[in-house]
Each structure stands twice: as C-alpha cells, then as structure tokens.
C-alpha cells in the first residue's frame, strides 16, 4: 500500500478542499448535485428567516402596552383576551382529541389483528380526513354543533370542531410511533408474564412517548393557527370568554379580523409577533416535556 492509497482512505473521514475539487473534476455531476442541494437548503432557510424578520420588523414597533390591556375596546384592539381564548381553546381541544387519538392508535397497532379490514378502512379514512380543507370542518361544525346541537357560537363548538380536525394527525403520528417500538420489548414484557394492558402502558407507550408528543405538538400548531374552522363555530366576539358556552376569538382569528377590517393593520402585525412567540413557546415547552419524559426512563 503506497502513500497515495492511504491518503485516499483517510479522505473518507476528512476531505480537503483540493481533494474535493479533484473529486468533482472527475465527477462533474456530483458537483451539480452538491450545488443543487446546498441551494435548496439555503433557499428554504432564507424564506423562513425573511418571513420571521419581516414580521418582527413590522410587528415589534406596534407592541404597545395598549395591545395587552385586559379589556378589549375598539381603541386599543387589545389581543390579551384572544391570547387567553387561544390557550383555553387549545387545551379544550387537546382534552377532547388526545385520549381518542391515542386510544384509537393503540387499538390499531396493539389490539387489532395485523391486516385487519377495519384497520385499513380506519387508516384510509384518517388519511382522507387529514387532507380535507379546514373550512369544510368549519361548515360541518356550524351545522352540527352550533345549529343541530344548539350550542350556538361557543368555544365548546369550536373545540369539538378542531378536535375532529386534529384527530387524524394525532392518531396517525401515535400509530407510527407505536409501530416503531421494537417487538422485542413486547416479547420481553409478555415473557415475564405481563398482560397486554401492562405491556402497553408500562413498556410500549413510554418508548413511543417522544413520537406521540411530536404528533401533539403538530396538532397544537394547527389549532393555534386555525381560522377557517373557528369563525363559524367559536365566533369572533372580542371579549374574554367566561365559560365554554361563550363565544370568543383566538389570536389567529383576531389577526384575521384586524387585517380584514383594514383599520388596525399595524396592530395586526403586532398580533402576528405575539402569535409567533406563542407558537415558539408552546413548541419549546413541549420538547422540554418530551425530553423530561424520555430521560426518566
């Protein structure tokens, strides 16, 4: 083995610029590929950074104390009630959707026989449901919860509508997470004389927890950003809700209304910053919880 060969082998781990250029000279296509993927990555990041910077530049100067007044009026167009409404509606939706979503996923991956017809039907339906535009959920929610159930415009109607909307997301991601748990964990648990319930609760679910939380975070993102499904179910009144049967607007609707009315565009930008920070906060919190849960194991 001469020196040159040794160098080539070392190059697998570390490659100098000159070596890389020589490599590309021999294979120009891989240079093209390299440039394309770098470009794709750079453009994606750039678009995102531009968006965030633009929102911050337009919004931050409008973050006046008025915007966070406890009471909304047409002078201060405070978004404080909307922030609280958003949190309430998010929690309410999750309380409804998470147990059903995770329960259904556990049935599909742990209890149903593999290749069962029902499972296939449920999966196809979940996939179809997650592709339906949210305004359709909004219309359904209005006809079903608001009108037929006579709940009126209320955050309860809004939360149920959103729950149906995010159910497929939670169900599918949870199912994927459960399927990814190695069968050897299940075998180990059964082999020690544990029953199905114990195996699922003590072994399978904890291992799948990070994946399940990722699904829940995805769902939270959709809830916080949703407008179309809420306008005709939770309504767009400006006050703080005083119960689940009260109507109220979330931040996203608040922003939509401000921009739509055209009188408070600046405040709409300010609200956008608040929404951005809220989503960032929720995501950070969720991943913190996920880390806590998985390090406990």
């Amino acid at each position, binding site marked *: 083995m001469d020196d040159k060969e040794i160098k080539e082998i070392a190059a697998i781990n570390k490659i100098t610029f000159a070596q890389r250029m020589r490599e590309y000279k021999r294979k120009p296509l891989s240079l093209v590929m390299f440039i394309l993927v770098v470009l794709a990555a750079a453009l994606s990041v750039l678009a995102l950074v531009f968006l965030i910077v633009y929102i911050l530049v337009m919004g931050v100067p409008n973050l006046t104390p008025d915007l966070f007044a406890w009471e909304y009026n047409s002078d201060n167009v405070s978004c404080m009630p909307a922030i609280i409404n958003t949190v309430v509606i998010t929690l309410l939706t999750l309380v409804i959707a998470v147990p059903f979503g995770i329960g259904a996923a556990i049935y599909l991956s742990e209890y149903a*026989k*593999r290749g069962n017809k029902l499972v296939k039907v449920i999966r196809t339906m979940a996939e179809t449901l997650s592709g339906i535009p949210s305004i359709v959920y909004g219309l359904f929610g209005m006809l079903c919860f608001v009108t037929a159930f006579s709940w009126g415009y209320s955050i309860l109607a809004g939360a149920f509508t959103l729950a149906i909307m995010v159910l497929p997301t939670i169900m599918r991601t949870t199912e994927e997470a459960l399927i990814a748990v*190695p069968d*050897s*964990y*299940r*075998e*180990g*648990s*059964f*082999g*020690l*004389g*544990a*029953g199905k319930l*114990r195996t699922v609760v*003590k*072994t399978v679910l*904890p*291992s799948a927890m990070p994946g399940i939380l990722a699904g829940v975070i995805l769902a939270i993102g959709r809830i916080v950003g949703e407008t179309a499904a809420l306008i005709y179910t939770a309504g767009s009144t400006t006050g703080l809700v005083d119960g689940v049967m009260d109507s109220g607007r979330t931040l996203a609707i608040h922003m939509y209304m401000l921009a739509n009315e055209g009188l408070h565009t600046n405040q709409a930008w300010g609200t956008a910053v608040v929404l951005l920070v809220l989503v960032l906060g929720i995501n950070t919190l969720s991943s913190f919880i996920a880390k806590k849960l998985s390090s406990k*194991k």
Partner: protein
Amino acid sequence: MDKFTIKNMNLYYGKFHALKDVNLSMQENKITAFIGPSGCGKSTLLKSLNRMNDLVEGCKITGDIRLDNEDIYGNMDVNILRKRVGMVFQKANPFPMSVYDNIAYGPRTHGIRKKSELDEIVESSLRDAAIWDELKDRLKKSALGLSGGQQQRLCIARALAVKPEVLLMDEATSALDPISTGKIEELCLKLKDQYTIIMVTHNMQQALRIADYTAFFLLGEMIEYDKTDQIFSNPKEKKTEEYITGRFG
C-alpha cells in the same frame, strides 16, 4: 423427574407444518439442548413451551404439552405460565429503563410493591446472574448503555427475578463474544441446581459442554433425543451422525 412432557405435538403456521408429531420429555434440574439446522423448528418448539407462539398470527398447535402434568394449553392462565417458565431471547432485549427497573419489572407485574422487597429481589437476581459486582453502582443508569454481554446477563437476571421454575434460552449466546458466552455457560451450569433449563443452540460445542440431554431436530421432526454424551459419541440415527460430524447443516 419430568418437568415438561410433550405428546404428539403438531404445529402449523398457516398451512406450513412446522413441527411434526413431536414426543419429548424434559427433566427437572437438567439442561436440555435443542440442536439442528436453521428452520428445523427448534425455536418454534421452545416458544411453544411458554406460549409465546400465541403472539404469532395463524399459529395452530395440536397435541399435549404438560408442565408438572398440567396442560399448559388448557385452563392454565398464560401469564402464570410465563411467570413459571421464563425466557431469554436470542437478542438481548432490555427495556429502555434503568437496570433496577428492568429487574423489578417482573416482580412489580406480579404485585410486589414494597421497596425493601424489590431491592432484595434485584440484588439476589443480579447475584444469581453473576453480574451484581459489575452493576451494583449503576442500578439507576439506563440498561441500554451496557455492553451486549452485560445486557444478556441482565435479561437472564430479569427472567430470574420472577422466580421461574424453567428457563428457556433461545440461542441466548449467539450474538455474544466467546468470553461473554463462557460466562453465560458457567451461569447455566450453576443455575441448573435451582432451575430446569431448556436451550436452543446453533453451537454444537455448547450443547456438548453444558447440556445433560440433547434433542436433534430436522425439518420439523425430532430425529433423536438422548443423553448428550450418547448423542455426540454414539448417535443411533444416521442423520444425527451426519449433522454432528458437520456433513450438512
């Protein structure tokens, strides 16, 4: 004394006839080894002894398998059966928990909650599996950080923690280095005073080293079953002789 007796047992995976008319009985406090080429049904038979085959879809078993003369496919609760008949798998499969929680998983499953009692079981199980000295300072650390050999001995300790009567070992050393394998073989010889051990192995030297009885399987049939010395020095069947002398398999 016979611990397990198998009579006229047939096993099917869907249409595939995986085990054909097996008759066998395994003695208490002895090591019995199943040998044979891949796909001969030895692992399948082992898994039938604690009903792990129940988890396989389309698996059907006929015949009679008795543990202490009690039909294990009859009225016996499958979870009780698996408590009495522990299993160590081919690939070490510690749960993604701490060493302590891994060992305590079985006892907790069977209703032991008291901390002092669990502490005692954890220590004695790890001692029995000859790994206490290596692990006593890292009981709270994740079991996934252990080496392959340590993980497998941890799994043995985990199986011992529920105080089984029989220990099934499904090629438990096939993924380990010779030193770890040696430790586990030593362990088996020590454990057979208290437990009945039934093992599947691809390693004929291993069967020769530690098994008291050996059964040779081929294409779903049990060809020969006898004392290990007998099988390896003076096999009655020609197929057995061909296999152990390495002419096929």
